[in-house]
């Protein structure tokens, strides 16, 4: 909307809540980047930095909650304003979860730094993180520019993250079957991969909120559920298969 | 803040000074106007005081059988009895001219007075009671001190002899002043001491009654029509302007109208309260219409809307809701109009209510006079005593006007609604 409210304080309030959200998103983006970097470089110290940022992210979520509740009580927003406030609330919850997942990834760097690297898993994870980082950046752009098309497109990109997650899952299963000494590293890596996959899902959630905010409706089609890891098992030949038709 | 309190700018002083000056101008204006009012009231009251007091003299009358036959009370010559009483009282009076003057001490109606008193109290017959008789107007003036005894005899109405007789009566306690009730119960008369306002009052009352009966319904209904029902446009604007102008037309014009149309064209009896009332109603109608319209306009449109909103027709909304609320204002306007009509002389003169009417009219078709006309006639006549009567009649008129205006104010205060 390029028109302004007659009561300018309303615009200021909305601006404030948006600024907080953008600060939060920026922090979370850095968290993902740093977590991926820490993992790749096996840098436990960098992992610690990620954890410290998480505190600020939680603080911001509380502030946004309070601001939103005040806005609802005091300004009685309607239509687009109402959708904006409600979606901002949900987006901040999503961002906070993403921050937690990034934090979780960072935590595991300490252990993984001590173990042997497992194949190309680190690279795969790095790729996944890069994908999600870009997704997050783009979805925030869509939020600011009220761009429906970009939000839709971001939603579709999650499929790639899911595919990477699926293949990593299979790979790690095979490594674990080969050598029990790999199990520690593989377990942690599995969790890391899962976390990044969940980050992707949450970003998809943000994209759906942006869609609702702009158009007034949730996206009509269902999410593409690319994650099939729930169905993967090892058959008698030692081959992984997914028992989903 | 102390700056504000302590600083006395010259502008502020000037402002205060001009306010104080204005207040003094206002007070001066009020004092001056009240002063004129007081002077006028005092003058009239002073002049009227004489009229409200009447002098009576006491005489011993011989009501023996020779003079009054108990079987035939009406047949006695009471005038002669009175004259005899005077002669008995002043036996020294011998000359004819002097005797005439002596008889002139009492009012010419004394005989009638005696007859009335005897008829009222037949027990007096056969004796020699001392009765009170109305003194003549000149003696009345003398008694109230309006005759200068020191002046030359030719310059007074009362001769020295009369003064002497009267003084003698006074010394014997046979002269007294009483309140002049006759003023209110008698009609007009050639003799000032007998003149009263009763017939004029009745004439006024009947005229006003006719005026009210004609002007109030017509005025109120006309106002309701013009305000509520008439289509707004050039014609209704024209009517409104004309009605406003009519209210300012000199009343004598209405008198001329009455003369030309009511008397000449319609041939109605002249000098009657009917015609007087009709002319007065022509005069009062514009006032009532204007006051009623203003009163109707004062009813807020929300009442009208509410009534129309639940499906009342225009007529129902007007007569059930709007008009009742406007009624106090309409009555106020009517009373003010009546007050004006009460005091207006000119139109009545034109239609002939200027005759010398003694008896009060008993219907609206009998010739009558009106109070303001009576005042005019009395003020016009040469006798001094009539001037007093005129002043007294003015007071009566003013009292009526004040009462009517007070009634209008009280009515307005009690029933006016603040919306």
């Amino acid at each position, binding site marked *: *909307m*390029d*028109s*302004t*409210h*007659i*009561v300018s304080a*309303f615009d200021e309030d909305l601006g404030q809540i948006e600024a907080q959200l953008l600060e939060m998103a920026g922090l979370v983006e850095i968290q993902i980047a740093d977590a991926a970097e820490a993992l790749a470089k096996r840098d436990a110290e960098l992992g610690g930095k990620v954890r410290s940022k998480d505190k600020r992210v939680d603080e911001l979520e509380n502030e946004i909650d309070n601001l939103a509740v005040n806005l609802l009580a005091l300004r*009685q*927003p*309607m*239509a*687009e*304003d*109402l*959708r904006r406030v409600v979606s901002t609330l949900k987006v901040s919850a999503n961002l906070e979860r993403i921050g937690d997942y990034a934090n979780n990834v960072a935590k595991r760097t300490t252990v993984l730094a001590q173990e042997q690297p497992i194949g190309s898993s680190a690279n795969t994870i790095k790729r996944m993180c890069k994908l999600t980082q870009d997704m997050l950046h783009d979805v925030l752009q869509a939020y600011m520019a009220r761009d429906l098309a970009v939000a839709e497109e971001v939603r579709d990109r999650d499929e790639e993250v899911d595919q990477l997650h699926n293949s990593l899952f299979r790979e790690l299963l095979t490594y674990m079957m080969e050598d029990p000494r790999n199990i520690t590293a593989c377990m942690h890596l599995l969790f890391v991969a899962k976390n990044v996959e969940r980050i992707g899902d949450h970003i998809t959630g943000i994209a759906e909120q942006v869609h609702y905010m702009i*158009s*007034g*409706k949730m996206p009509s089609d269902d999410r593409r559920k690319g994650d099939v890891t729930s169905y993967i098992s090892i058959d008698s030949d030692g081959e992984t298969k997914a028992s989903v038709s | 803040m102390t700056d504000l309190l302590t600083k006395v700018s010259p502008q502020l002083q000037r402002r205060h000074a001009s306010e104080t000056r204005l207040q003094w101008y206002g007070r001066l204006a009020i004092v001056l106007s009240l002063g004129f009012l007081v002077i006028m009231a005092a003058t009239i009251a002073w002049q009227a005081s004489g009229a409200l007091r009447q002098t009576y003299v006491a005489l011993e009358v011989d009501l023996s059988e020779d003079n009054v036959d108990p079987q035939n009370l009406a047949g006695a010559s009471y005038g002669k009895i009175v004259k005899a009483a005077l002669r008995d009282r002043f036996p020294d009076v011998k000359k004819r001219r002097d005797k005439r003057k002596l008889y002139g001490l009492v009012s010419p109606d004394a005989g009638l007075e005696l007859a009335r008193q005897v008829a009222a109290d037949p027990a007096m017959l056969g004796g020699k009671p001392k009765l009170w008789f109305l003194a003549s107007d000149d003696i009345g003036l003398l008694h109230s001190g309006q005759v200068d005894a020191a002046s030359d005899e030719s310059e007074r109405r009362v001769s020295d002899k009369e003064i002497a007789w009267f003084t003698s009566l006074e010394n014997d306690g046979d002269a007294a002043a009483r309140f002049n009730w006759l003023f209110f119960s008698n009609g007009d008369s050639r003799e000032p001491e007998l003149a009263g306002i009763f017939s004029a009052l009745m004439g006024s009352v009947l005229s006003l009654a006719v005026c009210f009966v004609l002007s109030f319904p017509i005025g109120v209904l006309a106002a309701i029509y013009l305000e509520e029902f008439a*289509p*707004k446009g050039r014609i209704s604007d024209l009517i409104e302007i004309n009605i406003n102008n009519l209210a300012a037309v000199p009343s004598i014009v209405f008198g001329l109208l009455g003369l030309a149309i009511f008397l000449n064209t319609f041939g109605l009896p002249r000098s009657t309260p009917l015609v007087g009332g009709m002319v007065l109603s022509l005069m009062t109608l514009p006032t009532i219409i204007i006051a009623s319209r203003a009163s109707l306009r004062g009813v*807020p449109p*929300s*009442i009208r*809307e*509410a*009534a*129309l*909103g*639940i*499906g*009342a*027709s225009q007529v*129902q909304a007007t007569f*059930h*809701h709007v008009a009742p*609320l406007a009624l106090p204002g309409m009555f106020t306007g009517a009373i003010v109009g009546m007050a004006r009509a009460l005091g207006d002389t000119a139109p009545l003169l034109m239609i002939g209510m200027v005759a010398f009417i003694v008896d009060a009219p008993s219907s609206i078709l009998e010739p009558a006079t009106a109070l303001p006309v009576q005042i005019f006639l009395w003020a016009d006549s040469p006798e001094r005593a009539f001037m007093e009567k005129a002043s007294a009649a003015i007071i009566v008129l003013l009292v009526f006007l004040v009462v009517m205006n007070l009634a209008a104010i009280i009515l307005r205060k009690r029933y006016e*609604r603040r919306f």
Partner: protein
Amino acid sequence: MSAYALARDQSGVSADEAAMTREPYIVARNVNVFYGDKQALHNIELDIEANQVTSLIGPSGCGKTTFLHCLNRMNDLIDICRVEGDIRIDGQDIYDPAVDVVSLRAHVGMVFQKPNPFPKPIFENVAYGPRIHGLTRSKSELADLVELSLKRAGLWDEVSDRLDQPGTGLSGGQQQRLCIARAIAVQPKIILMDEPCSALDPIATARIEELMDELRNNFTIIIVTHSMQQAARVSQRTAFFHMGELVESGVTQQIFTAPEDERTQNYITGRIG
């Protein structure tokens, strides 16, 4: 049975949904209204459903009150006002010369912005309408109708012991409820309300809003309001007027969460431009 299933069961098809399938009760087409040379309404086309509350919103001077007054022909009272177009109530063209305005206004009642009870006893206020329309045959019937109307307006308990006292002696909220009782005593099908709560305090306003919700079971209610929150609270359908045009109309919930027209959006969010 689970709470969820119970809830589903009882709502079934809501009355509002059922209303959508019926013929609209009031139909306005090509309505143009002129005050002298100035045009106040341009080509209004609006359907109003029976037994619902429809709210008309819009900035000052947008024509919503003018439109409301077209529905009971109160505009006839203004000499320079000219109404063109087709307004039908229950299929009948109300501007047909054969229609008696007085009986139309009994059919379509009105409640005004500032409470305007007659300066008469409370009983008289409510009884006047039925009396002039001859709705009752005996004094006891009239008294019953007055009692019913006052009960329906939620005022009976407060005034039943002082029906002979003037209506103007009540509080603002009570006066407005008295005006509502007066309007419904005439047994109209439609009640028009012109900003009925704008002169009342929040508690009185809330009472009247609750009343509107009860009344809509028996009447069709159209309300003009400046408060969007009130329109959102009380109405099932909302129509937005702007500069003499009907910009958008639809289900209230839709208008206030996701309006289609940008002008509507600007108005309800309090924006300029």
